[in-house]
């Protein structure tokens, strides 16, 4: 356990955020049990007032959760490596966290995605006077709730595993792959060309689907966009870490995602992985808006606009990612006339 201000800030933000989300979840449960938009009895009128309060609480809670997640990324990539002996970047920190760190991150990002989609529903809901999506968004919030609880729990566990006395072996896991064929994880065996091919193909498909969904918002185009924007980040992250990172680091092989966050590499990781996550959220957002827009005529128009905006974001962020990720490679190519591997 390390008592660092940023970890305390994360803990505080997490606790307050969780409190707000839980309180909103309680109200959401009530809404699912008792909501009756046709009735005008006491319970329904009171529930309408509470649903607005719950929505505000959940928004603040989600905001705090997103904030603490950002702080966590900063802590893991920038602050903790300086404290943990032998750690140079996030890899070492994750080693010290022994699996709980990875789980916490995965859960947090899934939860953030769900909370983002909830937030979208909530916003669409509030564009209409009577809030036709109140029940749906309550359901959405309840789906995101366990992720928030578990993610925060795993964060606490991961942080409590940090130890200033126990050294870690930061990059060993990354570069002892060579001459050690039997213990390679499967993705290390995929040739670079496949990564790049997958990256380019899914990227172009994603952009095409995004443009289509922007020009003609509809279920089909949005579904395609959603599918690609869920596949693409994996291909893109793979291509970035396995192939393109070499140009960011200017070394032949250093497939470490965390060093990208270091100031030595212009903290480009925040931008690249941020764009990736944003793009990942935008596709499902476009699909979700279209679906609820078609189901509830009261919000059809704002949902359409929202869907187009999400499609545009998906396209924009993926283009930004592609440019940001491959720029050093192109620069190298222009400067030297060859790729770094010769």
């Amino acid at each position: 356990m390390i008592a660092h201000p940023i970890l305390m800030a994360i803990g505080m933000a997490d606790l307050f955020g969780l409190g707000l989300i839980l309180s909103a979840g309680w109200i959401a449960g009530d809404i699912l049990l008792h909501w009756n938009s046709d009735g005008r009895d006491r319970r329904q009128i009171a529930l309408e007032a509470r649903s607005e309060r719950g929505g505000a609480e959940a928004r603040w809670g989600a905001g705090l959760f997103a904030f603490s997640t950002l702080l966590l990324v900063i802590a893991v990539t920038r602050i903790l490596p300086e404290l943990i002996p032998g750690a140079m970047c996030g890899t070492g920190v994750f080693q010290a966290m022994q699996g709980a760190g990875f789980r916490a991150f995965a859960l947090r990002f899934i939860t953030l995605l769900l909370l983002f989609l909830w937030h979208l529903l909530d916003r669409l809901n509030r564009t209409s006077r009577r809030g036709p999506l109140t029940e749906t968004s309550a359901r959405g919030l309840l789906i995101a709730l366990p992720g928030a609880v578990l993610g925060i729990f795993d964060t606490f566990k991961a942080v409590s595993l940090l130890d200033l006395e126990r050294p870690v072996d930061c990059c060993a896991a990354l570069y002892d792959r060579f001459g050690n064929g039997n213990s390679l994880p499967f993705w290390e065996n995929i040739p670079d060309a496949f990564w790049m091919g997958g990256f380019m193909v899914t990227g172009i498909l994603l952009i095409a689907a995004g443009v289509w969904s922007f020009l003609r918002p509809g279920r089909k185009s949005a579904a395609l966009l959603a599918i690609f924007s869920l596949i693409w980040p994996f291909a893109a992250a793979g291509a970035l870490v396995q192939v393109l990172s070499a140009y960011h680091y200017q070394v032949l092989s250093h497939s470490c995602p965390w060093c990208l966050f270091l100031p030595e590499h212009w903290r480009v990781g925040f931008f690249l992985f941020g764009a990736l996550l944003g793009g990942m959220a935008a596709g499902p957002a476009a699909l979700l808006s279209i679906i609820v827009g078609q189901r509830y005529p009261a919000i059809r128009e704002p949902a359409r606009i929202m869907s187009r905006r999400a499609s545009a974001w998906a396209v924009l962020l993926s283009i930004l990612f592609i440019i940001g990720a491959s720029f050093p490679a192109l620069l190298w190519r222009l400067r030297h006339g060859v790729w770094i591997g010769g």
Partner: protein
Amino acid sequence: MKKSRFRQILCSSLCTVVISAFFFIFGGGITAAGSGPQPGKMGLDEAGRMQVSDGDRCPVCAMNVIKHPKFASAIQLKDGRTFYFCGTGCMIRSWLHPEVFLGAEKDQLQKPVVKAYFTGKEMDAREAIWVAGSDVIGPMGPALVPLKDEAELETFRERHGAKATFRLSEMDDEKWQAITGKKAVKEK
């Protein structure tokens, strides 16, 4: 108006993507110069000492070597290029697999330089006695420690312990895995 501008942006971005894809697919003319990581700005000096400049990157882990001066080490190639490393581990890995990390063949390797543990004096890594599995921590975890002679080894063993010792010439992948704990083997 606004819409058409967005389309313009979209089109130009698409063009960028297509062009970059073109580069990637058809751009593979291969020559040796310019491939591989950048060597250090300055090579070893006449006495064989390292001259690390700011911005010299460790070709294995991409760290700025000048920030980790105590464990800095180097490999000189026959073509005159010298690579600087942030730690001894990175140097040994490159010595074993120059094709992976340096973009050079094994017969290109000329001289590995390390700083002897107790004195910090530069020496040929092939002459050093190496120690693994002590309590000494380098910039990236448990360090591989180069010692000058048997007397130093004795002192070192007393002070820090040593699970294994080796010479650089004996080093190969199998031994590496044994020493770094990838496979359990008994110490000789």
